[in-house]
């Protein structure tokens, strides 16, 4: 099975050819699945004018780990597409907000399920779909809706991306991935929506054939590059989140 050459020796190598203007999806939800090491490498690599697709821009918890907002702070981002552009708690301020309110970065705010389905549709060859979500809200103003079986639905378009950066638990050399618990979240659907998927992998990458085909969450055909996460402190690992002081 094709697969040789998918394993790279460093995160820097994995993102070295990231072009300016790329549309990049970042896996992860509240920690698990977030490709911290790849984001850190992208901060150093310096690609600019990026469009970042992620559930949040990050930065709401301590200790702070590499996140999309750091790319914004590093002046690498033109636009974000996410389901939060402000802090969950109105009294909090997330790092992204400052840049957004200053007009230094664009944002497209998308309901989380619509974001997931737009990615899924892109990976499934579906150009658009109708959803009940956001009907009757400010988000639907001026947009195409349709009544189907007596209920109004909003037209949403697929969201294909150039690159998906994700984190997985186990992998084999063919790129077959297994996620652990809440790590799965957006990772498989972002990979399927992408032309190029780069995964950081927590466990030693296994020889082809070592994973049970029935246990694979994302087939290797959707994964082009992998890097094993080194042990800390060289590699970045999820830590317990601490609420920011109020």
């Amino acid at each position, binding site marked *: 099975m094709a697969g040789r050459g998918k394993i790279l020796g460093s995160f820097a190598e994995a993102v070295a050819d990231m072009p300016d203007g790329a549309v990049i999806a970042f896996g992860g939800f509240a920690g698990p699945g977030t490709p911290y090491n790849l984001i850190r490498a992208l901060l150093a690599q310096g690609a600019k004018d990026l469009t970042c697709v992620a559930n949040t821009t990050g930065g709401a918890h301590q200790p702070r780990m590499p996140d999309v907002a750091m790319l914004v702070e590093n002046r690498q981002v033109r636009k974000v597409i996410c389901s939060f552009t402000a802090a969950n708690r109105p009294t909090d301020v997330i790092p992204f907000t400052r840049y957004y309110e200053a007009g230094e970065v664009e944002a497209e705010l998308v309901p989380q399920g619509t974001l997931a389905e737009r990615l899924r549709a892109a990976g499934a060859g579906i150009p658009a779909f109708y959803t009940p*979500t956001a009907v009757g809200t*400010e*988000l639907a103003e001026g947009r195409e809706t349709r009544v189907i079986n007596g209920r109004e639905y909003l037209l949403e378009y697929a969201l294909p991306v150039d690159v998906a950066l994700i984190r997985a638990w186990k992998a084999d050399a063919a790129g077959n991935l297994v996620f652990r618990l809440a790590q799965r979240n957006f990772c498989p659907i972002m990979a399927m929506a992408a032309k190029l998927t780069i995964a950081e992998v927590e466990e030693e990458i296994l020889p082809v054939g070592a994973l049970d085909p029935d246990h694979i969450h994302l087939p290797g055909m959707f994964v082009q590059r992998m890097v094993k996460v080194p042990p800390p402190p060289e590699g970045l690992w999820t830590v317990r989140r601490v609420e920011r002081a109020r």
Partner: protein
Amino acid sequence: MSRPLSGGPAQAPTPASAPATGWSRQQMADRVAQEFQDGWVVNLGIGIPTLCSNTDIGGREVTYHAENGVIGYGPVLPPGEEDLHLVNAGGQNVSLRPGASIVHHADSFAIIRSGRIDVTVLGAYEVSCRGDFANWKLAGAKGGTIGGAMDLAAGARRVFVILEHTQRNGAPRLVRDCALPVTARGVVTLACTNLGLFEPVGEGFRVRELAPGISLEAARAATGAPLLAG
């Protein structure tokens, strides 16, 4: 209604009752949790609704679903006992109950939109007597916090909201029409505030229950829409 006994490591101590202001945050969550029926699949929003999972609801069994694809999570775990691969929608390190399962995000929201969530409990800034509610954008804000709320509001079989009855300046949060951008229209069937339980019924809110020490007159004075007695 007295506060039910409750277990779980994240349990907050029972606050002293304060009749002038009605229920505490945990008491509101406890009261809403008493509405959960055996076998329901429940999705809890961030903030006060999360506290519903601390409530002992007797022999009834509910399954907690989180937007990130965790179906069947349990109590929040203390430091040292957590599994860092496992969080609920609020990012808290939770446990799993026997029979739990995991799906990816698109499947998690397929569960939501297809009506498999029996109830979602969400926080809100405002709720109207027609069942509209607003919880994602503050007046004058450029950014918003939609998260999964619009999908849950559109897809869950029931939408309950928990909110303080008034703003800090005393302005009502139970109103005829939401002034803030709405999350969904006509979906809320139960609003729990520190003053009681209220049902949007179109021309006003029907009072289902008042918190101890709260008079109908006091609730009326704090509400921006007609209150219809029981």
